[in-house]
């Protein structure tokens, strides 16, 4: 391995975009080497330049991008000097790329067969039949059942997971030496993601493909890569082997990232998340000296804001561990507690919400010729089937599940945006499941508020922040006096930790995290007894997400609000919730206290979900469970247990034909499964954590 010349060698690459506002130096002085069979991870927050690097390697920068300086050598030849035809021959045959959005990278007007077969047909002189054989072979390799049917389909006829497999197959068809993957699983559900990640790893091992794996998810990088590059504002701030970098991060930014993600050892009271303050500077507002300076706790005036900081070898670590920090040697990152300061747990009070046998069915009218002829036009989607649970004052109840499981439908019924089909929802003593929001009193509305996933959609772009919050206060009849309303808005801005002069700003002048804070301020304006947060941080970057999560927890703690936290991310859920409801295809598969959910007995789906979530901690051991197949369509759910088509513990015919019973594992811990409790109790824990104190340590074996 040592003397082997690298497949890809990037040296001092600078890439700029040229816009009307001027030049945007998106990537500065980027160097990277990829050896045969190696998987390199590039991790960093949105806008740090990850995709730009990938596009530069493909030599396709779009209309306004360009490489300013530096070289990209592929197998010894500089790609920046190649002709268009030479590049065309490389692309798709030697270097393949898998893009961020699988659906978008498939052409909607062409059959899958055309799109796949075109790869070998362009690069090799083979017949159409041979090309077809090859494609069928590769589709089997990416574990797509029934390749013939897939080949004859158009992209929109496939599910997200299938599309992503097709895209991967497309990348692998010509057996490239280098595969670039730009967030290949971001758009997928976690259990599907886990399957794809394993697939990519298996296949590249089989063919010896080198990979560059781009992701914002440290956990995913840990699971897939050999070496990792951490990017910040257009440059690499730290690089090293997975082992050295994850166990002994030296750059304050890398270290800060670990403090932002809820590892299984984090706990919202004892060891809360520690967000990095501030936000990523835009390429043209980078500070003098260290780009991370304004956000760094170890910033020293006169040193860190002087000359631009160079990459430096980390002595005492693995040979290729480097960081871009002047003070890596002096600062005692290890000595401080990585997480924020401990806080007292809140007491759980009286019952605020009770959901009894709540059902929500949607009717879908099918107008195809077939349906009209067969008279089968109206079908039911059982978005929620017999939901039961209770939430108390000050409690955080998480609803977890993947796409289509009915989380958001439930939130809509709670909010009165839809009415329930059957059953009851009792909020503060009133039955509300059948009262649409229009007929709810302003008191009822203000006491049940929501924070939405996408802060961008919910703010009116033409009004100032202040007037939008004031309007909410007026609408809820909380206050009529103008001056008092102004006072209240100011207080709310304080609460969500935004400067008071944001009153006069408009939404477009705000970053994503700031908009989400406004969303929280609006939700809390009427002092609600319950707030529903539907994936409130999943659109945000890790460092911003941590800050918003902490803020939400803090306000909740202060106001003793009941928080209904809807998420697909079990690590966040484990971190902040008291109770967890696990949903699959409209049904609750398991519910219980957080501790009960995260330790055996598990429902098989919970178990798989736990295993699917990547954890950015090399010392945590995880049992691997990879589910086959995709989540079934809610239009056509399995007859018996909804999970039966994918369950790894399926016990037989009974799972397919009979709905499983609710088994009481402990008080308020219910598991819906045919497997007897005694059996479930014998299951090993999915995640095992060695010793919490040994989480970040210096590697014992020092090689230099």
């Amino acid at each position, binding site marked *: 391995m040592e003397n082997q010349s690298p497949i890809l060698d990037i040296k001092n690459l600078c890439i700029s975009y040229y816009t009307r506002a001027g030049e945007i130096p998106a990537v500065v002085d980027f160097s990277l080497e990829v050896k045969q069979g190696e998987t390199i991870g590039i991790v960093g927050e949105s806008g740090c330049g990850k995709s730009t690097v990938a596009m530069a390697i*493909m030599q*396709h920068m779009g*209309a306004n991008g360009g490489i300013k300086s530096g070289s990209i050598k592929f197998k010894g030849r500089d790609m920046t000097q190649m002709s268009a035809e030479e590049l*065309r*021959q*490389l*692309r*798709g*045959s030697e270097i*393949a*790329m898998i*893009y*961020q*959005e699988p659906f*978008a*990278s*498939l*052409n*909607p*007007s*062409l*059959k899958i067969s*055309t799109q796949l077969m*075109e*790869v070998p047909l*362009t*690069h090799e002189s083979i017949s159409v039949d041979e090309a077809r054989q090859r494609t069928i072979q590769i589709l089997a390799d990416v574990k797509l059942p029934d390749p013939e049917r897939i080949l004859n389909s*158009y992209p*929109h*006829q496939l599910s997200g997971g299938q599309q992503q497999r097709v*895209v991967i197959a*497309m990348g692998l068809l010509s057996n490239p030496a280098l595969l670039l993957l730009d967030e290949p699983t971001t758009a997928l559900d976690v259990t599907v993601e886990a399957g794809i990640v394993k697939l990519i790893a298996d296949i590249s091992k089989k063919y010896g493909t080198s990979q560059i794996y781009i992701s914002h998810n440290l956990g995913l990088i840990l699971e897939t890569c050999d070496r990792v590059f951490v990017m910040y504002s257009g440059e690499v701030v730290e690089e090293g082997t997975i082992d050295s970098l994850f166990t002994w991060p030296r750059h304050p930014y890398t270290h800060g990232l670990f403090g932002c993600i809820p590892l299984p050892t984090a706990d919202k009271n004892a060891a809360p998340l520690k967000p990095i303050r501030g936000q990523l500077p835009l390429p043209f507002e980078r500070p003098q000296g260290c780009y991370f300076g304004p956000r760094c706790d170890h910033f020293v005036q006169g040193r860190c804001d002087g000359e631009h900081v160079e990459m430096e070898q980390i002595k005492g670590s693995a040979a290729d561990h480097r960081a871009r920090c002047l003070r890596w040697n002096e600062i005692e990152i290890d000595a401080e507690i990585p997480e924020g300061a401990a806080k007292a747990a809140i007491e759980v009070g009286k019952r605020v919400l009770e959901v009894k046998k709540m059902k929500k069915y949607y009717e879908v009218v099918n*107008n*195809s*010729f077939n349906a*009209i002829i067969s008279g089968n036009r109206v079908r039911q989607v059982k978005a929620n089937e017999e939901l039961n649970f209770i939430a108390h004052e000050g409690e955080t109840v998480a609803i977890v599940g993947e796409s289509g499981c009915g989380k958001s439908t439930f939130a809509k019924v709670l909010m009165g945006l839809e009415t329930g089909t059957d059953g009851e929802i009792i909020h503060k003593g009133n039955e509300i499941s059948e009262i649409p929001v229009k007929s709810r009193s302003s008191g009822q509305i203000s006491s049940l508020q929501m924070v939405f996933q996408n802060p961008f959609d919910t703010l009116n772009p033409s009004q100032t922040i202040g007037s939008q919050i004031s309007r909410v206060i007026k609408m809820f009849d909380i206050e009529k006096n103008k001056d008092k309303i102004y006072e209240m808005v100011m207080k709310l801005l304080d609460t969500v930790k935004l400067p008071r002069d944001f009153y006069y700003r408009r939404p477009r002048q705000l970053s994503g995290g700031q908009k989400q804070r406004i969303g929280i301020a609006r939700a809390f304006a009427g002092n609600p007894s319950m707030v529903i947060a539907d994936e409130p941080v999943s659109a945000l970057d890790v460092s911003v997400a941590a800050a918003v999560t902490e803020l939400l927890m803090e306000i909740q703690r202060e106001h003793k609000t009941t928080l209904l936290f809807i998420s697909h991310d079990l690590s966040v859920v484990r971190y902040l919730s008291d109770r967890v409801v696990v949903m699959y295809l409209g049904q609750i598969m398991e519910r219980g206290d957080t501790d009960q959910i995260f330790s055996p007995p598990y429902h098989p789906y919970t178990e798989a979900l736990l295993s699917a979530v990547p954890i950015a901690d090399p010392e945590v051991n995880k049992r691997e469970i990879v589910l086959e197949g995709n989540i079934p369509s809610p239009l056509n759910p399995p007859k018996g247990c909804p999970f039966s088509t994918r369950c790894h513990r399926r016990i037989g015919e009974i799972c397919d034909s009979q709905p499983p019973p609710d088994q009481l594992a402990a008080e308020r811990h219910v598991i819906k499964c045919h497997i007897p409790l005694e059996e479930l109790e014998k299951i090993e824990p999915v995640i095992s954590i060695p010793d919490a104190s040994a989480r970040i340590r210096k590697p014992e074996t020092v090689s230099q």
Partner: protein
Amino acid sequence: MNAQFLLGKIIRSVITLWITVSLAFVLLRLAGDPAEALIPPDAGPEVVEYYRVKWGFDKPIHVQYFKYFGALVRGDFGFSLHTGKPVHDIVFQKVPNTLLLGGTAFLIALFVGIPLGVLAALKRNSLIDRVVMSFSVFAFAMPNFFFGLLLILSAAMIFHTFVGAGELTFWSLILPACTLGLANVGSLARFTRSTVLETLNKPFMAAALAKGVGMSRRIVHHALPNAAIPIVTLLGLSLGGLIAGSVVTETVFGWPGVGSLLIRAVQTRDLGVVQFIVLMVASTMTAVNLMVDLLYLVIDPRIRVK
């Protein structure tokens, strides 16, 4: 696509048709007494009265209306007040000429507009792009008749021939066809350019490039089928413009088509003829719209396969 959708479309088309024809009927009758306009002024009032009764203009308008529709349903489109011949005979005689003119104009729009648009998109921000775009703005903004007159004058000056005498020669066809096609070339080129540009910026185009697919195949096989969907819509809409434009153009060039006939019939208040042309044009338009919808089935797999 499904049956209900299609049925809805058809019903809507029929209603549109009915409203157009009724509106034309009422408006034509409100605009004054046709008998007075048709009969020479020196004829006595009894003559006018005689014809008024004969043509039924003495009856209340709703009676006339029901009578007209009753006849329509039976396939009787009425007679020309002028010549007494069945209107469909008169009009259908002129239809081939108009089709010839409209068809040529449409082909010109198609084969000039679309390639120009694609070219401009591919050579974005280049000189070619700017020339094409300026031309299309010019073509779009120029009134039909004005451009027609310009053409006639230039032809007269250059070739020393005068078109517009009503005879059917190559030149007498090509000039009005260009005039008529030009406005559509402009809008079509501009629209094609923007759709193609939009398609070229789609991620699947970058993906095709990453596969090493060559430039020409990327454009012809990957980009154009996707860009075609909105372009077909515009083509359907521009057929309407073509018909409207043909009225003016035919008159300017003296082209013996339905447009000229319509103008003449309006001038002489030959109600039956006007009415029939309105009916025919409206039917063509709705049929074209329906066809565009059906064409989607062919080119957009997302609608086709469900």
